[in-house]
């Protein structure tokens, strides 16, 4: 008898503990997706927004290996424009504030990047 109480009580307690984030989260304020400002004075990004959203990490990794390991610094975008493969000189040229642009999504989703351990943006050095 007492075992049954302990077992079912324990299960209930465990289920409660495991679902605590749902009970105590702030349900009133819905999650606001980060709003990223776009500097449209410099034209379009290297690729489309949809492509970048899904693939910017792969693109950056490929650029990294292309530049450092193969000396291949020219990127031709899908619409035929030519860019330099560079985080600091191409991407940051438009998206100047990396905390505001990259940082917003990355810190919201807690996806740590180590780009900035080495790469420096002009804004930071001022």
């Amino acid at each position, binding site marked *: 008898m007492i075992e049954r109480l302990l077992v079912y009580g324990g299960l209930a307690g465990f289920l409660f503990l495991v679902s605590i984030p749902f009970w105590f989260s702030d349900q009133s304020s819905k999650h606001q997706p980060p709003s990223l400002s776009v500097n449209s004075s410099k034209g379009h990004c290297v690729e489309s927004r949809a492509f970048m959203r899904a693939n910017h990490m792969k693109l950056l990794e490929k650029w990294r290996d292309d530049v450092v390991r193969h000396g291949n610094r020219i990127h031709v975008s899908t619409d035929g424009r030519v860019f330099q493969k560079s985080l600091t000189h191409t991407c940051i040229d438009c998206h100047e504030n990396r905390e505001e642009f990259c940082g917003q999504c990355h810190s919201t989703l807690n996806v740590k990047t180590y780009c900035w351990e080495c790469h420096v943006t002009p804004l*930071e050095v001022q």
Partner: protein
Amino acid sequence: MKKNKRRDFLKISGAGALAGVGLVTGLIEKTVVGSESPTQRKTTKEKIRWGMVIDMNKCRDDCTKCIDACHVTHNVPDFVNPKDEIKWIYKSPRKKVFPNISQEFSTKGQKEKPFLALCNQCADPPCTKVCPTGATFSRPDGIVQMDFHRCIGCRYCMAGCPYGSRSFNWRDPRPAIKKIDSAFPTRERGVVEKCNFCVERLEKNLLPSCVETCPEGVLTFGNLNDPDSNVRKLIESQPTMQRKPELGTRPSVFYIT
């Protein structure tokens, strides 16, 4: 009973050796260097081999302009503790840069004359051979490149280099950089670094910082594979020396003493 055991042992060793050979050939095929960019080849047949000639007769003992230019361009940190020191190009007495030159009957001035030392960008480098991840590798144009993204910080390349050209980031370099230039990344703690022959400037058809900055014309930079280049002309017109050529590394830096 005993005979069977030894036979089993020999069978296993034989099978193991065959498997090992198979594994090795499979792996070697996988690690072929990737594609080269067209900017690195002059023609389809002739590769560029970047090299440098340093004329120590023109170098002023007290001048460090090339060192300062390099270290500022590349965000090389300046640590207080000599243990943590990082240097890409530096001066050291002749007896240390060229220990094989006999010092018997040399004057103190000759022995102690500050000589420039930097990565020799060897054509047959021991450092790239020993790197377990390929983080340091030879480019087709002869430059020994560092991939800081891949370096695991094992420092085997530092043990392999016979010239003491390499430095390690024992601590975070940023606090020790006087003024960070955003055009070139800093490095992070835990990776090895060294002179890169200003590869990022070469891609823009600029000379390396040290070469451009030197007011006395000590440093000449060019393509060693081009018989009409300035460096080849210097090497062919007078006796030049390389550091420790007997080690078979084939350095790309030549000295006029």
